[in-house]
């Protein structure tokens, strides 16, 4: 399990057309990895994520994806994810097919994926129209009680990318704080890439901590700050002011495209991205 640069991890393991999950529920969102995928101009990705917020707003607006599987897509506490909205409403920069779930459904699909079961099951989607617009939402009769339960097909992304606090030099990864479905999405994937705040000699993981052992991790890259503007517990808080500012940056196609060009496409890596934001007086 090699420790590599983020650019090497993306170049080696993310292909055009892949199904790709960047997980992290508000916390530990792998923003740097999403931007590196934009920088390397990956196309036709099937993006999977429970809450496609700013990270997928950037990737979808930059033209990386043609399909989205999700359960809630917006700018949390602020409003619309404007780039996702425009892709769905008017097909810009390209049409985006959607496969829509509830959170409980997505969670069940990842859990099934991690267990390599064919489907996840829940007492869900009751009385909603979601099953009418998503043919993947079906049902099964319980063989013990006769109750009809909802089913969702397992999610097994080609690649899952997570951000975590720490890895050791062998590539064991420690995650703490709000976990979302990171562990399930990680174990459901064919390849698992992880960016971390720091690489340490000893993980010193408390018993029962969430540790992804090195032998389920495909590659680790050390990218301090790589979850910004989301947060990494113990390192930096969520930059709520940037989430609010993103509403204006992303509202207009032109302004968004200029932002992606200036800060992502024209910078060599995440450090370059931060340096340019700071040089412009808008950096963290």
């Amino acid at each position: 399990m090699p420790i590599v640069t983020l650019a090497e991890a993306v170049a080696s393991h993310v292909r055009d057309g892949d199904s790709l999950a960047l997980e992290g529920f508000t916390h530990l969102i792998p923003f740097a990895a999403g931007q590196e995928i934009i920088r390397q101009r990956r196309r036709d990705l099937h993006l999977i994520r429970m809450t496609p917020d700013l990270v997928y707003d950037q990737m979808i607006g930059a033209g990386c994806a043609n399909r989205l599987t999700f359960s809630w897509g917006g700018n949390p506490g602020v409003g619309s994810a404007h780039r996702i909205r425009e892709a769905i409403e008017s097909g810009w920069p390209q049409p985006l097919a959607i496969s829509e779930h509830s959170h409980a459904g997505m969670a069940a699909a990842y859990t099934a994926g991690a267990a390599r079961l064919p489907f996840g099951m829940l007492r869900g989607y009751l009385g909603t129209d979601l099953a009418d617009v998503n043919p993947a939402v079906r049902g099964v009769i319980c063989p013990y009680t006769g109750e009809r339960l909802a089913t969702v097909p397992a999610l097994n992304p080609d690649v899952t990318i997570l951000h975590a606090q720490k890895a050791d030099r062998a590539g064991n990864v420690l995650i703490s704080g709000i976990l979302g479905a990171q562990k399930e999405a990680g174990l459901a994937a064919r390849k698992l890439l992880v960016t971390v705040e720091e690489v340490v000699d000893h993980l010193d993981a408390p018993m029962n901590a969430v540790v992804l052992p090195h032998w389920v991790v495909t590659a680790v890259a050390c990218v301090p700050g790589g979850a910004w503007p989301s947060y990494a517990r113990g390192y930096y808080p969520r930059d709520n002011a940037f989430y609010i500012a993103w509403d204006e940056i992303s509202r207009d196609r032109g302004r968004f495209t200029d932002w992606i060009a200036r800060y992502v496409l024209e910078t060599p890596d995440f450090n370059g991205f931060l340096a340019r934001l700071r040089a412009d007086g808008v950096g963290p």
Partner: protein
Amino acid sequence: MTTPATAPPWTADEMMTVTAARMLWNGCVCFVGIGLPSAAANLARLLHAPDIVLIYESGTIGTRPDVLPLSIGDGELAETAGTVVPLPEIFAYWLQSGRIDVGFLGAAQVDRFANLNSTVIGPYDRPKVRLPGAGGAPEIAAHARQVFVVLKQSARSFVPKLDFVSSGGFLTGGGARRRSGAPGSGPQAIITDYGVLKPQPDSEELALVARYETVAAADAVKATGWPLAVAEELEIIAPPTAAELEVLRALHARTHTAHSRPVKLPV
């Protein structure tokens, strides 16, 4: 809305938040949505319900935030929680298992049977406005023992027919929800900027049962896209007290300061 001789010294949002907070009791286990429901639940905790158990879908159980979260997973929620569990666990072990007393939701549209739309305005395939989507709401609406909804009332939001049912209320009414197998009792109160709507017995159609003293029932009817039933004995909701307003405004002020604070990365 009728304009009173002098506008009351509080906003519609404050009145709704206070009204919603009063409905939560001490010790209640409440699954909280972001925005106004979160403000109301924390106001209740700071006033009359110090032992309310607040659960956010990010996995934070028994959280006691000092400032309101902007997102459902702000660090403040985790740092002040009794425990933080993985997200699949929240929906399976804590919600679907029937441990939630009150689910507290917002929406973009509601219909006369308290079904909710937070998905799309216009056709699903050719949306006029694509909204964020259902998130945790469908299963909260199905499983919480009861559901409270907060939503400003207008003919655009209180509609005869939803463009999309994201979360089931009483479906087509008259017991349809119960027959669907949904375990919870469904939406028991819709808190609006006119008052409170509750389902009527048998039909399960929403009726206005309480109003603020600053509005007339006729105005609430006008702000509804279907012929809204009005209870014969309409309760008048007491205006916010000075203490309620003081605590709520201090909470919002702390929150605003915290959310405006610049973040400096340690790198």
